[in-house]
């Protein structure tokens, strides 16, 4: 204590205190340094994520005509979106059907990626014993992720097209007489491409939580007489659950918002939540696009909340 107090009381009393004080003056407070370090990233998120989100909500309540935004309050973005929905009850209107289709695609992709992701992660975490092999095989799964999604989508065209490898193979072996049409530009090809693109997002988090599982717990389960299946259900799945939930959130949010894969692989024929937004933007109907974005955001948020609930409730039990 003493030196500092002395110095403050009578500067110049202690030899060399002038330089000491200069050093002190230039030293920044820790909280200021934190701001300096974290501030730039915060600014980027503020300018390009948080404020834009606020604008989406605000603009969704603006009016519009064929040419421009009209910045005064209007519910037209929403009423245009749900146009005719009440009249058509009990049948679903177009927007209702579109969201139902999006949810259906989302559920199928989620179920398939979860199945594949779980077993791939399981194999890597529990069956591959050497660390080097584990690294190598994980890298092998990672590499395709580093190239453009569009390329990985169009990669299916030479395989699935009318004259593609699959069709010509099936015709040659005599299984079918004519090439089948539903392989490409269909729901099938959309789901296939989405699974191909995004299983990776399931594998990584599940693998991460699986490698953290203490192997002695599994041995203990076996020693206590559990079968392989019982160990899987009662030990491994509960412990891998955080990874499963994180992977599921990734896949679900990506598929709910997707419009590129659905566009390219669906031959621009399949309507989905993300496609509506894109179509509205292309027609310069920004408030309607924003209204759809708000709806999509709400649904995605609801699914995520529900998923994190499921885990927390189970954890507490």
């Amino acid at each position, binding site marked *: 204590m003493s030196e500092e107090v002395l110095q403050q009381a009578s500067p110049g009393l202690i030899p060399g205190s002038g330089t000491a004080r200069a050093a002190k003056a230039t030293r920044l407070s820790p909280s200021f340094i934190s701001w300096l370090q974290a501030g730039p990233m915060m600014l980027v*998120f503020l300018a390009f994520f948080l404020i834009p989100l606020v604008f989406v909500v605000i603009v969704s309540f603006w009016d519009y005509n064929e040419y421009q935004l009209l910045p005064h309050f209007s519910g037209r973005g929403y009423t245009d979106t749900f146009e005719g929905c009440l009249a058509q009850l009990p049948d679903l209107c177009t927007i209702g059907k579109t969201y139902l289709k999006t949810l259906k695609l989302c559920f199928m992709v989620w179920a398939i990626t979860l199945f594949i992701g779980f*077993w791939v992660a399981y194999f890597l975490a529990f069956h591959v014993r050497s660390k080097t092999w584990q690294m190598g095989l994980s890298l*092998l799964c990672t590499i395709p992720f580093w190239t453009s999604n569009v390329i990985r989508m169009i990669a299916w065209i030479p395989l699935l097209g009318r004259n593609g490898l699959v069709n010509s193979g099936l015709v040659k072996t005599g299984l079918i007489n004519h090439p089948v049409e539903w392989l490409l530009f269909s729901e099938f090809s959309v789901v296939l491409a989405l699974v*191909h693109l995004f299983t990776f997002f399931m594998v990584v988090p599940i693998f991460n939580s699986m490698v953290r599982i203490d192997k002695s717990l599994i041995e203990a389960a076996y020693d206590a007489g559990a079968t*392989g299946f019982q160990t899987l259900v009662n030990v491994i799945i509960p412990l891998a659950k955080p990874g499963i939930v994180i992977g599921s959130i990734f896949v679900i949010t990506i598929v709910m918002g997707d419009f590129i894969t659905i566009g390219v692989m669906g031959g621009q024929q399949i309507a989905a939540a993300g496609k509506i937004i894109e179509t509205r933007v292309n027609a310069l109907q920004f408030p309607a696009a924003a209204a759809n974005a708000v709806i999509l955001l709400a649904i995605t948020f609801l699914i995520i909340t529900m998923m994190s609930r499921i885990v927390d409730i189970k954890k507490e039990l």
Partner: protein
Amino acid sequence: MKEGRPRSFYVLAIFFAAYVLFLYGPMIAIYVLSFQGPQGGLTFPMNGVSTFWIAKLFQGTGIVDLGAAFRRSLLLGVIVMIVTVVLSVAAGMAFRRKFKAQSLLFYSAIASLIVPSIITSLGISLEFRIIDDLIKAHWNESFETSMGLLTSGLGAHLTWTLPFGLLIMFAIFNRFDPRLEEAARDLGATPWQTFRHVVLPIILPSVIGIGLFGFTLSWDELARSSQAIGAVNTLPLDLQGLTTTVTNPDIYALGTVISAVSFTVITLALGTIHVLNKRQAAKGSDAGKGLV
């Protein structure tokens, strides 16, 4: 003394192999098809082997000016990479002690990662449209737009790369030994010297990993670019445009070229990381080597 493999091992090994085949099969197909002969079509069988379609790309005789798009994507990717590295390392350092707005920044990053890209992209485009309208109304009537590759486009890409950068920094500092900094401080190093000569060399391999993420994520980014980039296109956008009109294998050639750039960058980065790790192992510590 190895125990025998259970039967499930073989079942899952086959499953894994099938998954890898599923991952790579289609991609290899287009890499092969991009070497079709001049008469070749979009599907197998190959009609001769040549580099005709790849050469055609670089002649710029295609539907769009791919050379310009290539340079734009490269420029944007490099800038995104540099900004991502600098901001992620800085923010990663900040997270090592408590500060206000810590959880706000963390949740912004996570939300930015999981809010569907089309919404982020739409929001940025609305933001810039409103800024444009304000400029037109108050300052300059003939003003065109503030949207562009290095304004709205750069911002859109950063909302995608920064969360990855931050998460990697968390992983790095989780296994960083703070006693090394303490030692540096005890020897009289200033905070900057500590960072420059102690922290940075240790985390450098992972920092290169962040740069790798930054570049390749930007290089392949499509959904966020789609609404937010302004009048110009990046390479993935041109590629997506081609998918609806294409009848020639030049789209595969383009795919092959884009992948080749990605793989070159990955190989360079992994190579550098490897060399740095080797150096660290060789020169990092002289513990146990005696006194002289």
